[in-house]
């Protein structure tokens, strides 16, 4: 097993592509996006279904990578999160086939 880091970025859907470009530019070899149902933040609850506008829709992006690449990505993610709605967290994980990340 190899030690890597895992980014979990929860971000508004309209900024999803921007986040993707940033992750790719940082050299991360992959990421996966998951849909969300709803949530709470800034004192407001939101819910995906029956929000016809999709205005508060979020996606969760998971990316596993080496600490250097993760650190590199975080600078730009911080910039995105200055403008866009979202939250990011980083944790330590172990992976198989470490050369892939």
């Amino acid at each position: 097993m190899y030690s890597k880091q895992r980014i979990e970025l929860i971000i508004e859907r309209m900024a999803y592509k921007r986040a993707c470009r940033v992750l790719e530019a940082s050299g991360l070899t992959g990421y996966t996006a998951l849909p969300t149902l709803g949530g709470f933040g800034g004192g407001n609850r939101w819910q995906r279904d029956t929000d016809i506008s999709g205005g508060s829709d979020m996606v969760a992006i998971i990316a596993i990578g080496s600490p250097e690449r993760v650190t590199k990505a975080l600078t730009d993610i911080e910039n995105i999160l200055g403008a866009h709605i979202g939250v990011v967290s980083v944790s330590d994980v172990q992976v198989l086939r470490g050369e892939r990340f």
Partner: protein
Amino acid sequence: MDVAIATLLSPIILFFILGMGAALLRSQMNVPEAVAKGMAIYLMMAIGLKGGVQMATNPLTLDVILVLLSGIFLSAAIPALAFVILRATTNLGRTDAAAVSAHYGSISIVTFVAATEAVRLSGLDSSGHMVAVAALMETPAIVTALILALAGRPKAADEVAGAERGELVREVALNASVVVLVGALIIGWIAGADGTASVQPFFTGIFQGVLCLFLLDMGLSAGRGLRNGWRTLGATTVGFGLYMPVVSALIATGLCFVLPIGQGDAALLITLAASASYIAVPAAMRLALPEARPSVYLTLSLGVTFPFNVILGIPIYIFLASLVTA
């Protein structure tokens, strides 16, 4: 008056009221997002096709072109007025005010459809090119609003990381409603009444019924938006959501006096001016003005103005149109 009551008692509006009531009473029911999105695409295909087929039989006269240009003018001009009003009467900042005003310049296609039904119920005719007007009115408002928002900035703001040249233009020019509406319009135009006959049971036959289901969902959406969001809006902002559509409608009515336009088409143009976007413009604003608060512009457009227009506004706009041609 009769029209107003007939409109209010049509199943479409009643289902909207049902959904809104259920949401305000905190029912947990909902229509799955995927189904709502599917219906939205269906409705735009149906509207586009119908408009295209009608346009195939009528030549594109100068009169029609004048109406198209008027639509573009209204979409571009209304945001400027809305912006001034918002800055003068509410405590919204420059960016929020610009974002809100973009919504009121642009249009709501569902309001347009509801108005088309009401116009038909009133025994008036409308023409296919009004769909083209609707499509053309979607975007100029966004340009005006961006100019208003950015004019106040000391210098060009730094780009958000990951932003790409052209992404905003692509979003605005190729979003689902533009692609489907304009695409279906052209397809209807090419295929004509004969070519589209075999698809009419789907796009015309069940249209009204699908609209009921869609408006049930719109009601849930509007009611929930209103319940969650009204606290973030001050009283003057809520008021704006109620009188701005009437202001826009009056401007459009004035324009109609000088336009070569029939009563049904005038009612639709007035409705388009009065309606506010809640899908295409919010998406564009998230890209272009991410610091503007969606809770403000969405609550206003979807939770206040849309219900107002659908329940009370449309009969008013039909009445205004009757003044024009009287």
